[in-house]
């Protein structure tokens, strides 16, 4: 059974339509990245899954039930964008309050504070917390009561690189334990390795949905091969250009060539046979490249209409 099933959901705020016929599913133990620009409908999608909004049309099922069912909510953890807490309470008191509301075990509170690295600041008032600390407290809050579905809206905002890495590792651990996760973000670098599938939204429409490999295949974006420390850089560039490849200079004695699907190894062999590079870098299309590709394609399609 799918953890989340969204079928043909449209959502309007008054006259403004923010989602058009969205179909999306999430399996158990799957991590779905939901990407899109501001106002693409990411947060609205989350609010529909949380039962905070009623879909104007279509159906949203969570664990096979309506999303506002209290039993569903007990299995759910949510980290909202720009999380805020009661400034007058300490971190510990805040988490205790939410643990009681969720019916989570009281012992879990201190363990979670430890896990997100707030044990030292637990007795301090949330008023004195930095953005990153609030974010970590928010994450601890979302993990109360061992949720089976986690919804994280911009979880890395305000986190330093190390804390971001810790967060991703935590998500990996949760995924192995069978937790399903939806991760909403427009910060893309670094997230690729930690998601199973990516969904790209724009203006309330789903542009692309699939694993990274599927998206790369679909987008037909070339892998970039960069070599430096070459003795015959100019010759290589001309040779490849004459064969129809797109090339570019890379530093003083280097070259970059775009390798479309299937030609990557051929080009690499040629490179090593003809020259003796000191450094070779192979860069497959990143999530950011894919994202840009789909966005540009959507924009040109729209302009064509």
């Amino acid at each position: 059974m799918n953890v989340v099933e969204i079928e043909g959901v449209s959502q309007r705020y008054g006259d403004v339509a923010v989602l058009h016929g969205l179909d999306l599913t999430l399996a158990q133990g799957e991590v779905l990245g939901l990407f899109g620009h501001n106002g693409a409908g990411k947060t609205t999608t989350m609010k529909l899954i949380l039962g905070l909004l009623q879909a104007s049309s279509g159906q949203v099922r969570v664990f096979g039930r309506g999303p506002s069912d209290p039993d569903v909510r007990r299995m759910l953890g949510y980290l909202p964008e720009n999380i805020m807490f009661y400034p007058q309470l300490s971190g510990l008191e805040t988490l205790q309050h939410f643990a009681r509301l969720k019916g989570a075990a009281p012992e879990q509170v201190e363990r979670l504070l430890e896990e997100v690295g707030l044990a030292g600041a637990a007795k301090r008032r949330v008023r004195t917390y930095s953005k990153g600390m609030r974010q970590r407290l928010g994450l601890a809050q979302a993990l109360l009561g061992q949720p089976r579905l986690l919804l994280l809206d911009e979880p890395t905002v305000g986190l330093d690189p190390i804390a971001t890495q810790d967060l991703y590792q935590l998500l990996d651990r949760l995924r192995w334990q069978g937790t399903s996760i939806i991760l909403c973000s427009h910060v893309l670098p670094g997230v690729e390795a930690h998601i199973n599938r990516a969904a790209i939204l724009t203006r309330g429409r789903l542009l692309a949905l699939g694993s990274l490999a599927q998206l790369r295949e679909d987008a037909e974006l070339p892998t970039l091969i960069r070599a430096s420390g070459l003795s015959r850089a100019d010759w290589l560039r001309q040779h490849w250009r004459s064969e129809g490849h797109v090339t570019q200079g890379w530093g003083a004695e280097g070259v970059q060539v775009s390798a479309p699907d299937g030609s990557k190894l051929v080009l690499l062999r040629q490179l090593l046979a003809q020259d003796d590079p000191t450094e070779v870098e192979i860069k497959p299309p990143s999530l950011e490249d894919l994202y840009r590709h789909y966005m540009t394609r959507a924009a040109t399609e729209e302009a064509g209409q």
Partner: protein
Amino acid sequence: MNPIWNMARKELSDGLRNRWLLAISLLFAVLAIGIAWLGAAASGQLGFTSVPATVASLASLATFLMPLIALLLAYDAIVGEDESGTLLLLLTYPLGRGQLLLGKFVGHGLILALATLIGFGCAMLAIAVLVNDVELSLLLWAFGRFMLSSTLLGWVFLGLAYVLSCLSAEKSTAAGLALGVWFFFVLVFDLALLALLVLSEGRFSPELLPWLLLLNPTDVYRLINVSGFDAASSGAGVLTLGSDLPVSAPLLWLCLGLWLGVPLWLAYRLFNRRCP
């Protein structure tokens, strides 16, 4: 029941933390003791006069204070949480909107009830101990009724505060509306009633007019507290109308109860329509 109590618990501990409970109790105690001993100063006497006079003066004081305190305590209950961003989070927890609202009400209501009990209770104790020839049973009965009805009046205005809080998009709007509601029920209503009485020159049905008092919870509250005493001596202003009112004490209590129930229900309906 548990989620309601968990919400209430937070409100109650907030009330202790920001010293609201302490401040209100202290205010009540000081004012009550002051009125008990200095209330007759206008007529040239000093010291305790009588239980009915003291309770009547206390009731007129509480008519002003209780609604104001209740409105101040609760006007930001929903809109404040919404503005600070915590409402969004709370609504994703396994807790219904009705439970959330009721939890807030139980918490705020307990603060008011405790403050009334501590503040006015202290005054009652002081009178019982320090005044020699006071009739203890009368004191207990009158003060008991006064404290109970004061608490109920506070709860009525908590309910009204929730209505405003669910209605407003911003905290400052809710604060302004709360002040307006206080002004209307405590000051404007009685004046308007008097004006109606004078301007109509008796053409307005005299049977109907007293019933209008029931449209104002603070008037119902004062009627409860002056009944049973010699009305002519303690009632003043529009309340003398109340002596014509063929309404028994239980019915007045019921009326105050309705004034509590209807706003709470209305607040719940408004809250359900609200989008975080």
